[in-house]
């Protein structure tokens, strides 16, 4: 996100009506209308309608494409590292690049991002390094020591719980008169949790500047979207809170950017929260502990690969004469090098000794006596064990 961008042009106005509500006072009739599946960039790289194109400069589109390449490269590398036992369980994102890049790019610099566990790309675009991401997935807590200046919150594993944090954070900013919005990521499964409900309801009542960004990747582990809720769309859940909800093609970075930008601008203008449902798909396993062949067909996965977010933008850029095969190859090579460097740095950090104090240090601002006692006892045990082992080795 360090790249400059023309603010004026970035101002997105969603020309199509995505959501409309109306009351006929005479008849006492409420009507809600929701536009399903907002799309700008077709699978073949052409535009649905020229006029829908968001105000992104060519360089910005290229930069977004590069980010998607980086993410897919990182993802493949992380998977390989997991298979080699060099990191732990990993949640791949491939397939969801446009949803993450388009939405993260729509934020203002001062906005905050609340991820779940699969938002590697969104987090990276906001400034978290691949190294720290690898550390986290490699079981090193320091991965989540978010650097100052990186407006990203820690990963939340318990589904949908982070929505409330994003609401509270935005609400606090609003109370303090600070111009900060929050975006929070969650999946289709996440919409079933009670915390989803409470978060959207609070956001509605207190009109917090919060964007609820649902990556509907069709599955919650093995449970398909259609078994998650009887609602025809997830976007319509916004109606329950008097909010606006939109459904967007999550593999279309232009549409995702445009809709999110609209929601971000609305949030900054005091217009309150928005629910965005981005229709997308994860190509791989839920995590490396999962096996998707148990609940999806190869055909289904192949079908979704036809809607690939990278391919689509590449076709568009090529069609515009903005991109060619050489650039393509170079971009992948650069991404590989970038990720390789991150892996190397991760391995260096991973090899470092860690003091057991790390376990105790961050429970409270000040370590209370019982933790100091437990730490001392652990150290004492480790010393004894080391001594004993030395003795044993001496004997042997």
């Amino acid at each position, binding site marked *: 996100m360090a790249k400059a961008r023309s603010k004026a042009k970035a101002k997105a106005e969603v020309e199509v009506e995505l959501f409309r509500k109306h009351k006929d006072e005479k008849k006492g009739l409420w009507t809600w209308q929701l536009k399903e599946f907002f799309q700008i960039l077709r699978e073949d790289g052409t535009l649905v309608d020229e006029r829908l194109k968001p105000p992104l400069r060519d360089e910005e589109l290229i930069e977004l494409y590069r980010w998607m390449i980086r993410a897919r490269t990182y993802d493949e590398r992380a998977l390989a590292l997991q298979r080699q036992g060099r990191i732990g369980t990993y949640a791949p994102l491939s397939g969801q690049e446009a949803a993450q890049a388009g939405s993260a790019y729509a934020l203002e610099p001062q906005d905050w991002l609340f991820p779940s566990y699969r938002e590697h790309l969104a987090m990276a675009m906001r400034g978290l390094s691949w190294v720290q991401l690898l550390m986290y997935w490699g079981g090193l807590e320091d991965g989540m*020591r978010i650097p100052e200046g990186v407006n990203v919150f820690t990963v939340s594993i318990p589904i949908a*719980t982070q929505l*409330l944090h994003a609401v509270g954070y935005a*609400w606090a900013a609003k109370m303090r008169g600070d111009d900060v919005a929050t975006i929070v990521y969650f999946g289709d499964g996440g919409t079933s949790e009670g915390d989803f409900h409470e978060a959207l309801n*609070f956001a509605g009542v207190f009109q917090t500047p919060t964007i609820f960004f649902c990556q509907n990747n069709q599955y919650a582990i093995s449970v398909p979207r259609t078994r998650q809720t009887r609602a025809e769309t997830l976007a319509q859940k916004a109606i329950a809170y008097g909010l606006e909800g939109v459904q967007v093609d999550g593999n279309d970075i232009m549409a995702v950017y445009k809709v999110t930008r609209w929601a971000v601008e609305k949030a900054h203008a005091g217009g309150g929260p928005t629910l965005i449902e981005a229709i997308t798909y994860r190509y791989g396993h839920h995590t490396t502990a999962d096996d998707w062949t148990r609940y999806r067909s190869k055909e289904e996965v192949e079908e979704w690969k036809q809607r690939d977010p990278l391919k689509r933008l590449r076709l568009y850029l090529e069609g515009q004469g903005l991109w060619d095969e050489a650039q393509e190859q170079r971009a992948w090579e650069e991404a590989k090098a970038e990720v390789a460097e991150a892996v190397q740095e991760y391995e260096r950090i991973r090899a470092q000794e860690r003091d057991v104090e790390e376990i105790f240090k961050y429970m409270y*601002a000040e370590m209370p006596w019982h933790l100091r006692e437990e730490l001392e006892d652990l150290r004492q045990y480790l010393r004894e064990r080391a001594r004993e082992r030395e003795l044993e080795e001496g004997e042997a």
Partner: protein
Amino acid sequence: MAQLTLVQAVNDGLRTAMRADDRVVLLGEDIGVDGGVFRATEGLLQEFGPDRVIDTPLAESGIVGTAIGMAVYGLRPVAEIQFDGFLPPAFDQIVSHAARIRWRSRGRFHVPLVIRAPYGGGIRALEHHSESPEAYYAHTPGLKVVIPSNPYDTKGLLIASIRDPDPVIFFEPKRLYRAFREEVPEGDYEVPLGKARVARDGSDLTLIAWGSMVPVALQAAEEAEERDGVSVEVIDLRTLVPLDWGTIAQSVEKTGRVVVVQEAPRTGGFASELIALINDKLLLYLEAPVQRVTAPDTVIPLGRMEDYYLPDAGRVLRAIRKAVTF
């Protein structure tokens, strides 16, 4: 100095903390317009306005979860959960997030949040209005657990809790809300967390209690002195986590006999932890097994049978006698 009840001391503590620091905000059900179902927040909406005294929708996870977000932002939210029995819907946010965000972020983020809840029985209330769930929170690393027993401590501990950089579960003994008045200084003062109070000096036996059980303990101590000539030292823990072990150890080393009183059910209550610590560190000082007086392992009865359930001075005195005559 004013003569205040315990619930007035809550109110005074909140008001004092809010005046001193405009980052302190209150949120909860019925705390604004209504002034709280126990009137603990009476008048605060009028003084601080609806941005700092917030009536929320009816959703405890929502209250605590958004308060966590506020705390991470840099506010000092004080969330009220209307009754002890309505903490469970917020349990996930408390144990999975409030208690862990400092840990998870290696100190980058922290959660200066206070969760206030009236707790305990003795007011013949409906179900879920009389629980003593402190053991759940004491067993959750990352939380502090504070339980005052009198107006003075209430105000000082509440202010200290609000200023503490870490999440504090603050249990208010509701049966003591209006049980008596006490001199409470005006203005700002703190009673530090992690420090117990010797509520009564004694030499023969150490009686440990917290919250609503402190007056019961004191009454039993008086009776033991009067009737049996036993000199009982009463320790009011004030903070369960972090515990003031020094004060306990000093007393137990002196007396060699201990009774612990707890309003919660027996199995796995905080009394068990105290006994375990005494076992760990002071077993050789003991002249008798530690006696514990607790509620039984049942739900607290509705109004009519409550008196049989809650530890009373008679049961504590009986335990004192057991410890002394062992």
